[in-house]
């Protein structure tokens, strides 16, 4: 069992630019053996063959992240720019209620 875990593919974080003029946005993660495979898979999974979008993939363990404990020091200066916080993004009205 532990033997097999060693062979698992690493995790990649996926960022997609849905259309020109927008930033790349983090959409989720996936597993792949290498960057090339990660890009292929990201296209299949997160954009379903849609041409013309731009995709970034980053090895998850290469992402350095701030810790929530450092909130004060890092984020206070921009506390008024609420859109920087992921929790701000509300649910689109278009979510279907059938």
């Amino acid at each position, binding site marked *: *069992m532990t033997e*097999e*875990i060693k*062979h*698992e*593919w690493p*995790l990649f974080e996926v960022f997609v630019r849905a259309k020109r003029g927008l930033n790349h946005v983090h959409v*989720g*993660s*996936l*597993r792949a*053996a*290498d960057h090339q*495979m990660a890009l292929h898979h990201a296209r299949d*999974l997160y954009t*379903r063959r849609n041409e013309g979008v731009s995709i970034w993939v980053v090895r998850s363990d290469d992402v350095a*992240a701030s*810790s*929530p404990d450092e909130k004060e020091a890092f984020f206070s200066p921009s506390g008024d720019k609420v859109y920087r916080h*992921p*929790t701000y993004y509300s*649910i*689109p009205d278009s*979510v*279907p*209620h*059938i």
Partner: protein
Amino acid sequence: MTDTSVTETNEKSFTETIAKDQRIEPRDWMPDGYRRTMIRQIAQHAHSEIIGMQPEGEWITRAPSLRRKAILLAKVQDEAGHGLYLYSAAETLGADRGDLTRRLIEGRQKYSSIFNYPTLSFADVGVIGWLVDGAAICNQVPLCRSSYGPYGRAMIRICKEESFHQRQGYELLMTMMRGTPAQREMVQDAVNRWWWPSLMMFGPPDDQSPNSAQSMAWKIKRHSNDELRQRFVDMSVPQAEALGVTLPDPELRWNEERGHWDFGPIDWSELKRVISGDGPCNALRIENRRRADEEGAWVREAAAAHARRRQEAAA
């Protein structure tokens, strides 16, 4: 600060975040119970998407028109995507997909028992879209507001696609109902078989659902099982009428006072039997998943070995 006061501060800010209807994000502090419950719920949901590919997947190669084939193939593919979005959300909580898959294969984690029923005709594809995806939508739309951010965001994408699943299922049934008498019979037969299992998808009745209170408090869950089940019945009855099929429940009638449809008692012993692994297809579903995982192991290992070699060569 002492350890206890750190924990207290953390708990306070967690509770406040939930109370303000804000989202908990991956690197936030959260109680162990919340993390465990979240992982279990997301994993179970992910497993359901992946196992759920099987009953319909069997009909892709046999679909009776090329258009239906394309629709079904894309639908089953969507379910694989749903599984991936969800495993990805579970991994933000520190779970590992390979480990979750092993738990599924070893029967230590569950998936929705609806997928333990067999698909007997192509009409089942339509009825699954209409009723099973329909019930899933009722369950899942509120989850878009789950207190755990990554789960809620995954659910938004999923709900979007599920609504297409339901529409394609219903459209297939409408087409079949306009077809030959044999086709209409197939539709009615499929509805008879899937109606009660669909109602069971909402879980046990509220007075027998022990974990619900905590999940409601954590805003992991936002409506009770019975509430969602009633909503589903109320939506499905007029849809069945429009389709021209009968729902197999003699006690189904409009209750003016309640403003809802009354329906007959659910056979919970049947649900328990299926959940505990005694459904018609439990063993088959797990065996298929296990085989795919095992037969793919050498491929995954090869890709990992190749990536390592490339990396070493570059270094």
